[in-house]
């Protein structure tokens, strides 16, 4: 029974990781691609790690998986934030379907 629950979590995680990869291919520019990859890959990987925890319980491996979930949830948004800010600063264009860019307008005002 525990094995089945663990496998359900792991399979769901793999599906979300796959969706994130599809998003990386299909969406138009850096910013939208980061949206897909950050959200889906974070939850997908957390789900896989939780499956590992369910399978191995309170052992060295299971607890490492739980701790990894905490660190992943804390660090993934920071990495995405750093990437997207660097992309904007180095002048990557937003795709032409973009409707507004308040960040560019404001930084033009400042300089």
């Amino acid at each position: 029974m525990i094995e089945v629950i663990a496998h359900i979590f792991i399979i769901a995680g793999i599906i979300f990781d796959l969706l994130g990869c599809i998003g990386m291919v299909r969406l138009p520019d850096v910013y939208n691609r980061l949206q897909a990859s950050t959200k889906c890959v974070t939850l997908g990987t957390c789900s896989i790690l939780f499956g590992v925890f369910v399978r191995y319980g309170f052992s060295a491996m299971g607890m490492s998986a739980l701790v990894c979930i905490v660190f992943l949830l804390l660090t993934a948004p920071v990495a995405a934030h750093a990437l997207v800010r660097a992309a904007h600063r180095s002048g990557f264009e937003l795709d032409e379907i973009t409707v507004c860019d308040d960040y560019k307008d404001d930084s033009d005002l400042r300089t």
Partner: protein
Amino acid sequence: MFFSGGRVLSLISTYWGFDPGMRSRILTFIIVMVFWFLITFSIDLQHAIVGLLLAFIVAMSGVGDMFAGKAGKWLSARRYWFFVLYVLIFLKEVAKANIDVAYRVLHPELPIRPGIVKVKTDIKSETGLTFLANSITLTPGTLSVDVDAENGIIYVHWIYVKDRNIEEASRLIAGRFEKVIKEVFG
């Protein structure tokens, strides 16, 4: 007895009361030790000695001063309840975010309308702003680009811009978290 239990306790409470630097170091030491024992998950002597050494080095290096600065507030029970509430809201929003992105990615016409909007917030503390920006990144269709801490403005890349107006956008994006984060980290 020079090192009786009472003396050690009074020594700790003296530092706890008057020296914020030492206080945050003691806190860092405890947190690092807890994480060490969770990861190794064994309580034999070798692991304990290595863990104590490493935790001591990390605590004394002063890394913890960044986040454990206001250690006095760690003792308020109210904040922990709001933190639990925050985690629950956060998990719900993360699940919604993933279904939302999955829908947009798999839809044949890619229903996106991206743009960068401004979000206004009242939160002033650095930890609070960090948590708000992180929460925004992990919720449906939004990704924080930059934080202007002085004016309390977060620039957010939104995959489907519903409203460009700063008040309306703030309500839609940050409204879910702002009150709770203010209670916990404000």
